[in-house]
């Protein structure tokens, strides 16, 4: 092959790209659209103004990272509810088993991926922080 051809080819590609839309995302000004099944930050689904979670302890049981803490409480109607629901995101491996295990569809994983923080304690998401914001 002519030794010049590859150089010309290369310059052509560069030239083409000069006139194309860039592929990089101008984050944070531009934000990506994550896939439907992306496994980001958890959220607790709400039903009738309450967390749907019935504190069945299945998600902490299946969680391979052992990062979920559930404590059940008894409400005024003697029903079970999650008095405490906490995920330590520093340990979470985002496997989604918790979502799979939940018998009442109470926990889901959102597209939220911006999870950086300054303090370790900020990675512990308690029930308030996990409750699905409407």
């Amino acid at each position, binding site marked *: 092959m002519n030794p010049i051809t590859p150089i010309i080819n290369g310059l052509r590609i560069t030239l083409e790209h000069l006139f194309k839309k860039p592929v990089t995302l101008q984050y944070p000004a531009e934000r990506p659209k994550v896939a439907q099944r992306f496994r980001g930050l958890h959220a607790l689904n709400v039903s009738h103004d309450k967390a749907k979670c019935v504190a*069945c*302890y299945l998600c902490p*049981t299946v969680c391979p990272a052992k990062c979920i803490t559930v404590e059940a409480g008894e409400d005024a109607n003697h*029903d*079970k509810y999650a008095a405490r629901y906490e995920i330590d995101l520093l340990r979470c491996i985002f496997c989604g088993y918790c979502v799979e295990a939940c018998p009442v569809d109470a926990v889901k994983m959102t597209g939220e991926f911006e999870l950086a923080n300054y303090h370790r304690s900020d990675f512990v998401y308690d029930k308030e922080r996990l409750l699905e914001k409407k």
Partner: protein
Amino acid sequence: MVNLTIDDKQVTAPKNSTIYDAARINGIKIPILCHDKKLKPFGACRMCLVEVEQMRGRQVPACTTPITEGMIIRTSTPDIIKARKMVLELLLLNHPIDCPVCDKGGDCDLQNLTYEYKVNANRFSDEKFHHAIDYSNPLIERDMNRCVLCGKCARICDEIVSFGALTFISRGIETKIGCEFEGSLNCEFCGSCVSVCPVGSLLARPFKFKARFWALTNQKSVCGYCGTGCNLTLGVKDNKVLTTVYDENQGFHNGQLCCRGRFGYQFINSDKRLTTPLVRKNGTLTEASWDEALELVAARLKGAGSSAAALATPRLTNEELVLFKRLMETAGSANYDHSAGYAHAALTEGFAKSFGAAASPATILDIQKSDLLLVIKTDSYETHPVIGFEINMAVKNKGVKLNILSDKRGKLSKLPDAQTLVHTPGSEVAVINALAKTILDDKLAAGTAAAIPGYADLEKALAGFTPEAVAGQSGLSSDAIKRLARDYAAAEKALILFPIGNAYPGHNADLASAVANLALLTGKLGTEGSGVLCMAEKNNSQGAVDMGFYATRGLNAGQIMDGCASGAVKTLFVAGENPVVSYPNRAAISAALDKVEFLVVSDLFMTETAAMADVVLPACSFAEKEGTFTSVDRRVQHIKPAIGKIGQSRTDFEIFGQLIAKLGGQAPATPATVFGEIAASTPGYAGMSYASLGETGAFAQVAVTAAFVVPRTVAVEPAAGKLALVTGSALYHNGTQSQFGEGPMYVCPEGYVELSRTDAARLKIQENDLLNVASAIGSTKLKARITPRMPEGVLFSPYHFGAAGVNQVWGGAPVTWVTVTK
């Protein structure tokens, strides 16, 4: 043995087995739902269907069908599996599928079977039940919507507990389990029904929603309340004892527990537990370091000699008691005693003289093997409930005769054909003497009796105790006394049981001797199903006696208290005991403890006694330590820690060891070392080691050298216009510690005084009236309980409650004469 074929396997099984038993013995699993090995066969659920060739291949329930020679059985043909699936489908028809919120999830027989038999859909449909759920009591929740009508709860409550709180009500499709008049549960709350319920119909509320079954770590232990020595499994999570887990294969009692054992565990993780040492500074107890506190104590004990004294609770382990004794000896003092030693004088003085051994020459296992049981002094059901279950099963299942000699009736008196002789308080020794006299007069004594030392003296001493003479004094008829004596003598095997404890004072040693005389006279000793079982109060009372933790050379508990008051005792070390509440005559005890120069208390809680101390040391509960306990029948059992120590608390073993070291002595490193020493030096414990105790423990041998001892009797003179107050145990409590267990406190939260209907009517007293009960030494206010079990003129009050102050009235006499006003 019967030969049969199960699933093409040639097997044998004992005759009287059911097909289910035969299969189980041979390792073949047949699913069950309504069957329980402790209960009589019932056959309600049909889960255990099997095919029997001889019955033309018909499907029969394995749990109720007895085996016959040559039976050919198949347990899992496709037809059987189909049938079992259908049984489950039918059960699930009405059963709510609320496993995520049901506490039984993970430990539910129905859930497990549904999974095992892959019942993923239901061909039938019906409405679910809408029964109201019973939340009315804090211990047991009843959700009859989940009930599979196996009847286990009703059967255990009837067959073993003998309370009969639950039963099937309504019929057909309406059938459900209910209480009388469909009311709420109001029973003795032993939790037996909860333990056997295969589904989530009956739940322990203290554990409600706390954790899933699979998240618990199970640690086997021994109940820390009474001397029965029940085995128990603690369910632990996050260093907290969350529940007691039922294990039907545990202990002689097959996992049965009483209210205290099952629901009284909360004291272990109570937030009232002491967590740091406290030292009195400027009059107030302030937090201190262990070093500071122990230095102070060691400085006081160093060379203290007889000015130091020690009192221990018999809840300490054997090893701790040995070490405590060694600590006192290092300090130069021989003044130590446990639980107001008089409470155990029956063993240490009575049995020691009569049998030459301070232990009972019979075991709890003898109860079911006997022909006749004689329960003396009080209803042993209240003091040792699980022994009560054994008695109940012996009477109901084995037809064992039951005679009770007591100053009041109790639950045992309600058992079928139970004969109760209610004598006037304080006359029990005289009555037992009269029994012995009758045996002698009627020539019912065994041939061996005359050769036992002291026979002639006894014969002479009993001359005055004719049934006629004693009848007048005891309020019994002479015929009744004679009949009892003859029954006892005639029975081939007869066992005498009598409970002792802090609140059963008076004439313990004499009572023990009197009882021993009966057994010796009739030769009912040393054979299976016969003998005498003295039931000491606390979980390690027998151990304390065996370890010699009572006054032999020094002062006993009473004398120590006197010494404190007179100034002879300057330093008092109280380990786990709460004399202010549990010893007689509170005013005197408080004054003595006020007087003593230096009071050290090691305890789990800030008790009334600890509050008076100069140094308070936080100690560990049984769930946090290692060691051995000895039950009333000398079963030595090993416990291991179930949880880590709470706060800065230390075991008494560590506390005593560190003090010994500070006093310049040599402290053994581990409880195992001390147990080795015990095994080497304590009669009956020879050759024992932690390993040899295993999970079931081992019996320490009792070598009996018999002698007749003439018991002293004190005539209790009735006081005109006054009522006789007897003290004792309430079924739900044991010592003062159960006050920190939420379960027992829900059922029985405060002291009370029981009186008969006649007395109540005469004094115009209504249930729950606040009564002023006054004796010669003091008075207190107690709520009235009117019960049919009390004889006229007799009051009963449990002693456990600090606030009730029964020991302000009661001074340690067997009978306290009181006046009662509103």
